[in-house]
């Protein structure tokens, strides 16, 4: 079980690394940022909803965090 987890994690990190290494052709020119500049494309577009959701799932499940620093600081779990 433990070993399988580690394999999955290694595979995930390898995927991330290949994404990083293979991005020579990725990206846009400054004048192509019109869509990316829209509010709806922000990665932190709904901070309050994200924080409330994080708090709910933290109190119902064994996993937290991921996108940013984990919730925590709550006696609910």
């Amino acid at each position, binding site marked *: 079980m433990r070993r399988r987890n580690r394999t999955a994690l290694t595979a995930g*990190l390898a995927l991330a690394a290949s994404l990083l290494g293979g991005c020579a052709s990725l990206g846009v020119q400054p004048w192509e940022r019109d869509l990316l500049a829209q509010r709806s494309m922000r990665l932190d577009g*709904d901070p309050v909803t994200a924080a*409330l959701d994080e708090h709910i799932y933290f109190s*119902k499940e064994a996993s937290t965090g991921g*996108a940013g620093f984990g919730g925590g600081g709550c006696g609910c779990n």
Partner: protein
Amino acid sequence: MAATSRTYRSIRGALSAACALAGVGGVATSRATEVETAILGYTEPNRVSALETALQARHDFGSGRLANFKVVYDALTGASASGAVPSAAVQTFTRPSGRGGYTTAPGETPLDNTFRDARVAVSGGTTLPLGRLSTVSAGLYGSGEHDYMSLGANASVSRDFDRRNRTLSAGLSFSRDTVTPEGGRPIPFAAMAPVGADQPRLAGDGSKDVADAMLGLVQVIDRATLVQVTYSLSRVTGYQTDPYKLVSVVDPTSGAPVDQLFEHRPDARTKHILFGRVKRHLPHGVADLSYRFMTDDWGLVSHTVELRDRVALGGGGKYLQPHLRWYRQSAADFYARWLLDGAALPDHATADYRLGEFGAWTFGLEHGRDLGRDHRLTARVEYYRQSGDGHPAGAPGDLASFDLFPVVDAWIFQVGYSFGS
């Protein structure tokens, strides 16, 4: 005049972005304050209900200097599963305070209905530019409820590469949590004393330290697509036992509870979390798909897949956003729905369903619209349903006939209002 009927596409959005990159105008130089507020109702029929209110303010001082402040208040009442198994007989449990008790009808899942708590969490932080391409951020966090307190600090740095198409960030966060449970901390694996009798307790408060390290990458793929990958390592040391949770010791043949023991969890936990996300601008709106993998040395593995698909509805910033979330976790190594009378006690045991094996779905729908310039209103409804194996193999005697993992379902209602200038 001689103007033709030809129409020209707007270059203004792209030009604004280009000017912002050149160091004039745009986000980089406008002073702006954004305030987001929300009120959320959470209800599990016959169990917990909670009301949460949140306010976040973000001020942009220009030139890449930002500050943010957030306060969340929530009030919670109701009952939650104590971990004890149902029984064919009426069961009496002592309240955590030791004063008074509550009973559970035959066949019912024991719910501790003592919960009534209010929590306030406050956090603030600032981001400052470090040269043209880097930023440094730092923040403080504190929260308190009547039996729990948390204080934390975090710091991170990020740097843009390749025409700001790639951002790498690294951060650290520490927090110290203090648990002062009602009635004190029970001795792990001590049997629950009857009402009025003395419950042996551990001396002092419980505390745990949480240290997180995070590495993140955000990559622009093309004009419409962003990818985010984050790896986090989290190390928690100290008191992680839930002082209110029980594990039933049952008779190996009848399945009847013989004793109710306070649970006991290991005092160290190391978590690895890998998170990946793709956000894409589509003709109809914006799709946001993420996957999270978590594994820890308690033997837990979890997978979370989440999809939000924003569908723009004409003008006025109106949209509908369906939300789908799928979650699955394996059980912790020391999860035990019951312990058998006469068998040796394990090193650690918990019957908290949140450390058991289960799956969960969330279905949600959000609507948002602009209210004039710079004001937005959102409303959402979500349904959450958690289910596990209610009839695990090997359940002795009566336990085989009871639902040992009752479905947890919850409704979430939220109204949000935000404004900015």
